[in-house]
């Protein structure tokens, strides 16, 4: 099948859908300028108001203990490792307090697959959060985490989702997707945590339960161009089916300190991938710029390559930082970058409802020039409430049988 850019340009301009072969042709052969221009055209068609959104939330990783052992991850620690941690409820409350003070209204809560945190721990945490902060939104637990809880609790995914929703879950982040092709997932040692079908099915179930979710893609490891496209096309198919994805977020694999190693995909590859996503994912309204992996400058340039959202202020980030990226943008910087690019900056919710103008236009906020971390270095405290929950691992059982020093 042969294509010409002119034919595909007409297709895109008239709102037609790209097929797999056509999208692959564009990804491999279209000039970067062409891809950017077409992606910008689609972005303008979907968002003619010139608004670029962002959310003020905090990216909290409640535990780094994980049994999945993905070889691209520098964040996790195996069960029993001295640097493994679980945040206490009080630590999480403190983080929420700080988030609210910065105008935040949501917690993005994700963590490792910790065998010593049963479903009840999550339910209790969510209930406690909602009791103290009724207006706070919980954007929590990526599909592999939901699947992990399903396996541990021996409950079907819909039941787990229902219990989490009853406890306070508002939406599900699209983490853990990596590349939704099982050949790739096996090579990344993440097939066990969730196959491509399993990841998609958790999202399908979440959408059926009335939850909105995001979708992500981590590219730049072992996948081919065709597999990147297959990832996008599988997401597009689920979106056709459910309409439950609010946004798509792509980022490049960060290799530092990982078992896999290797090199990071370049900035141009990121912009081309983002632009292609805007063209292929015609049923996704929102594309986020991944400034946390690309930096503020290329993050801002993403707005010319199809992105309409600057993601999150984040406040805290641990996973990408562990793999070598340590960019920071507070609300001042995000707004400055949005406006410098000629757009109107608006705060949004996870559902992409406009919440208002930047908080910094209403009151002065302390500048944040570095993202916070989960815990201070050397903090090995063990939350007291963990004693209330049964551990599954031998290390966890031993730890919970020992007398504890009080949590700081």
């Amino acid at each position, binding site marked *: 099948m042969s294509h010409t850019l002119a034919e595909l340009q007409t297709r895109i301009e008239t709102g037609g859908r790209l097929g797999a072969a056509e999208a692959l042709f564009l990804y491999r052969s279209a000039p970067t*300028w062409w891809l950017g221009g077409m992606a910008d055209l689609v972005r303008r068609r979907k968002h003619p108001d010139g608004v670029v959104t962002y959310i003020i939330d905090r990216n909290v990783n409640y535990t780094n203990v994980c049994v999945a052992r993905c070889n691209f991850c520098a964040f996790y620690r195996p069960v029993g490792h001295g640097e493994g941690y679980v945040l206490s409820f009080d630590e999480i409350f403190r983080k929420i307090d700080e988030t609210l003070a910065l105008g935040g209204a949501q917690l993005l809560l994700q963590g490792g697959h910790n065998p010593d945190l049963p479903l009840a721990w999550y339910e209790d945490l969510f209930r406690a959060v909602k009791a103290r902060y009724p207006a706070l939104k919980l954007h929590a637990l990526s599909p592999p985490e939901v699947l992990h809880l399903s396996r541990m609790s021996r409950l079907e995914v819909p039941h787990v989702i229902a219990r989490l929703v009853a406890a306070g879950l508002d939406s599900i982040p699209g983490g853990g997707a990596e590349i939704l092709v099982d050949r790739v997932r096996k090579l990344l040692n993440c097939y066990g945590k969730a196959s491509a079908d399993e990841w998609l099915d958790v999202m399908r179930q979440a959408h059926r339960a009335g939850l909105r979710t995001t979708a992500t893609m981590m590219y730049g490891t072992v996948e081919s161009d065709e597999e990147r496209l297959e990832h996008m096309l599988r997401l597009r198919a689920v979106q056709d089916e459910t309409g439950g994805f609010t946004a798509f977020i792509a980022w490049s694999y960060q290799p530092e300190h990982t078992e896999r190693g290797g090199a990071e995909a*370049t900035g141009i590859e990121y912009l081309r991938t983002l632009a292609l996503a805007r063209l292929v994912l015609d049923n996704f309204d929102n594309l986020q710029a991944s400034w946390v992996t*690309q930096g503020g400058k290329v993050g801002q*340039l993403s707005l010319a390559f199809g992105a309409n959202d600057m993601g999150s202020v984040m406040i805290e980030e641990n996973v990408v930082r562990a793999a070598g990226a340590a960019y920071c943008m507070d609300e001042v910087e995000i707004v400055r970058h949005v406006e410098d690019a000629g757009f109107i900056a608006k705060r949004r919710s996870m559902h992409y409802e406009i919440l208002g103008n930047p908080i910094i236009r209403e009151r002065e906020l302390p500048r944040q020039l570095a993202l916070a971390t989960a815990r201070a270095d050397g903090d090995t405290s063990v939350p007291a409430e963990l004693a209330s929950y049964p551990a599954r691992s031998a290390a966890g059982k031993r730890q919970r049988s020992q007398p504890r020093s009080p949590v700081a």
Partner: protein
Amino acid sequence: MMNIEINHAIAARARAGESLTEAELAELDSTDVLSLGMLADEVRRARTGTAVTYTRVFEPGPETDAPSLAAMAARGVEIRLALTAASLDEAASRIAHVRKASGPDARLTGFSLADLSARGWAPIGQVLAALRSAGLDAIADAPVDAVTSAEVDAVAAAGLGLGALSVRGVPDQRVTLVLKARAALAGRPWVSAFAPLSREQSVSAPTTGYHDVRMVALARLGLPAVSAIQVDWQQYGPKLAQVALTFGASHLDRVSPFDDTALGSRRGSVEEVRRNIVAAGFTPASPGTSA
């Protein structure tokens, strides 16, 4: 093919290598960033093809020993000195020491012309002559927003080369800066490179990606007399530097001289640079090639 949404008459003049007026540059600066970049890329490719040159630079500290300097020089790495001396004699002595250690064929550069001028050690012509006599090949950079034309001319008068005209601060107006650079380049064909991105950045409010790539593109379009638009690889980082290549830049300065391949050959600095150049659709020129 996608159309450039830009004033066709201005685009035609830019393609022809004509000197654009202030109003034309202002119009270009107000157009969308993709169209601006596309035009700058087109002009740059017509001028220098797909080649991207880069300079590996070693910046020795006071503790750097002679064998290390010699080894760098033998690999064709440019040795670039920072201005740490308290006096002209001390600076000249340092140059002489490094020249002796690195050998007569080493490319030995250093200092910002603005810093030398600000020291006030002596009339700038005398300072430059003394540095040349001590063994310096070229002044590393001359910021157009901090030096005079006479100071730039003094560099050539002293028999020194100039790595690049550069920019120290963040300009209020990009077009004004391009015009200033054009004036500095006029009648000075020996200046072959312009580095349009600011050397000094605010930590709390650094320049944005849009500003940087617009600056690069305007420099390419507004300065037909200069052969290379240069970006500092270390200061601006691989991602912005790579993107800048698609907005008209053609030379990467201050590439690391070290090739630590402990994490694999693809993680070596030269491999990383070459990989980024290729991924941007260009062809890496030989290491050490000057602009």
